């Protein structure tokens, strides 16, 4: 199958799966909702009143949208970092980029940024700045002459992550616990409903980040030849690296700002999709947008049903999946450079 056809087929398939998972997610939860009510609401014929309306439109739909967006953003960020470092284990949380973004968010919250639209943008800017600082630090620590050795990169990521986690703890202990409210819950990844305006900002920033990465997907494929190899074929490797790094950091920052530092999505989803659709970033990245949505939505649906009526944080589910997956990848192909 040639490129465009394959892209279309893969996207159609994944969109279908995403739709089904979204429907399932709409149906299940601590409050019972009749399937008929959803159909009526979606078709715009009422009268669906009271709790059902609130549960569907006010709680579950925004949450589903946030989960799909965050999952897609994290998966694309993961694919971006992996292509950039030619390392299958690179991922926002493992590289410490998420922790940097989280530090930015906590800093912004403590200095009094709230939930409004302008504040949502400000929060994203702080998260983006934190992600950039963390990412550049990892790069500077890990870059030893030629290339980025796998283990050095991972260690640098862990160290930077620990540093920013400690810095977050310092910030938290400096302020009155009452003002922190949901920070702890948020730090574990929390998809509690986001206001519609903020959701719009989240979607716009995610779109920008995906465009930054996807727009150079063809050149990104050539980067698998190494920087010299890509340059010899006409790729401006320096500019490409800066753009992909900015895009991946922006996606990470947006997710952290709106739903918290959810780990491992950027590791699991691109890897699973690579086995399914191959390494071509022009197909892989659009697939990651949808596949990441499917994965995080499924994880969140699980998180809010397994211990119902209580809720787990979605980050707990992704970490429980991600940690064994990471170990498997580390054992099976740590020595190899890719993709």
């Amino acid at each position, binding site marked *: 199958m*040639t*490129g*465009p056809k394959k892209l279309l087929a893969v996207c159609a398939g994944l969109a279908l799966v995403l739709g089904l998972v979204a429907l399932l997610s709409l149906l299940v939860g601590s409050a019972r909702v009749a399937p008929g009510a959803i159909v009526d609401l979606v078709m715009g014929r009422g009268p669906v009143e009271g709790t059902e309306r609130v549960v569907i439109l006010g709680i579950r739909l925004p949450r589903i949208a946030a989960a799909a967006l965050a999952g897609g953003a994290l998966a694309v960020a993961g694919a971006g970092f992996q292509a950039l470092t*030619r390392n299958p284990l690179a991922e926002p949380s493992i590289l410490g980029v998420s922790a940097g973004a989280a530090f930015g968010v906590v800093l912004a919250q403590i200095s009094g940024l709230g939930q409004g639209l302008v504040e949502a943008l400000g929060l994203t800017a702080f998260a983006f700045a934190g992600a950039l600082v963390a990412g550049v630090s990892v790069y500077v620590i890990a870059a030893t*002459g030629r290339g980025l050795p796998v283990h050095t990169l991972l260690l640098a990521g862990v160290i930077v992550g620990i540093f920013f986690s400690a810095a977050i703890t310092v910030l938290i202990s400096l302020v009155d616990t009452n003002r922190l409210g949901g920070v702890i819950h948020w730090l574990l990844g929390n998809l509690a409903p986001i206001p519609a305006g903020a959701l719009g900002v989240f979607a716009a920033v995610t779109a920008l980040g995906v465009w930054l990465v996807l727009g150079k*997907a*063809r*050149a990104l*494929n*050539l980067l*698998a*030849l*190494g920087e*010299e*190899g890509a*340059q*010899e*074929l*006409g*790729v*401006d490797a320096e500019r490409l690296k800066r753009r992909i790094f900015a895009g991946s950091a922006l996606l990470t920052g947006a997710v952290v700002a709106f739903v918290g530092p959810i780990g491992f999505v950027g590791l699991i989803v691109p890897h699973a999709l690579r086995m399914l659709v*191959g*390494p*071509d970033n*022009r197909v892989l990245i659009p697939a990651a947008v949808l596949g990441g949505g499917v994965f995080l939505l499924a994880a969140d649906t699980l998180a809010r049903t397994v211990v119902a009526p209580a809720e787990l944080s979605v980050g707990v589910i992704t970490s429980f999946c991600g940690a064994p997956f990471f170990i498997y990848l580390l054992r099976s192909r740590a020595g*190899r*450079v*890719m*993709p």
Partner: protein
Amino acid sequence: MTPLVRLDGVGFAYPNAAPGRTRFEIRDLSFAVAPGEVLGLIGPNAAGKTTVIHLLSKVLTPSRGEIFVEGEPLRSLGRAEVARRVAVVPQDVAPGFPYTVGELVLMGRFAHAPGRFFESAADARVAREAMRLTGVETLAGETLGRLSGGERQRVVLARALAQEPRLLLLDEPTAHMDLRYQAECVGLLRRLNREQGLGILLVSHDLNMAAELSDRLLLMSGGAAVTMGTPEEVLQESTLERVYGCRVVVDKHPATRRPTVNVAWPDR
């Protein structure tokens, strides 16, 4: 006629050489490759041959002097523009490269339309023709890791041809090839050179192949040019013995009458 490339007093030093080791550098190098010419670049290890290839493909930038590609300063050309004129055939592909042979050869088309998301049907045709020329079209669906060294080199040569360059920079093209593919490779390069007027800069340890294929040879040592001329002029026993530091016997190929170099093995 404007040369394909011209180096004019080019100097280069690697910025951060390991402490204790001698700083490797290229010193005051000047030469040109004419359209349709085959220039062989020979010399012992660490003579600076591969560095010259990196300089010509703009992977490295000279610290002194100037490089011209078809009369234009290399530093004023964009990377894609360089890659449309100059194609590199490196010694090997990065290990773990995940794409198939067909996909790799198609990557050679990038420089012709960097803004295009998917390659066009015309790109696919050029890539197929390049694979046919190097005899790797049956390998199109394989990943690089499953190929032999010689097959990989023919694949990389196909990728370079897909670039439709005017100058080919070859870094040890026959290093992993058995006799049959060495012969085929020489035949192919000669055909490309004669039929399409493709200029070739050939870096090789194989002095006999270089002598067979090249119009002129440039002998380098320690980052500087030692001598340049026809294979007969350059491949002199006294010169080679001084540069390589071992005894050699220069003879003539029984069939082609080109010079051949044989090591005078010690202690017999």
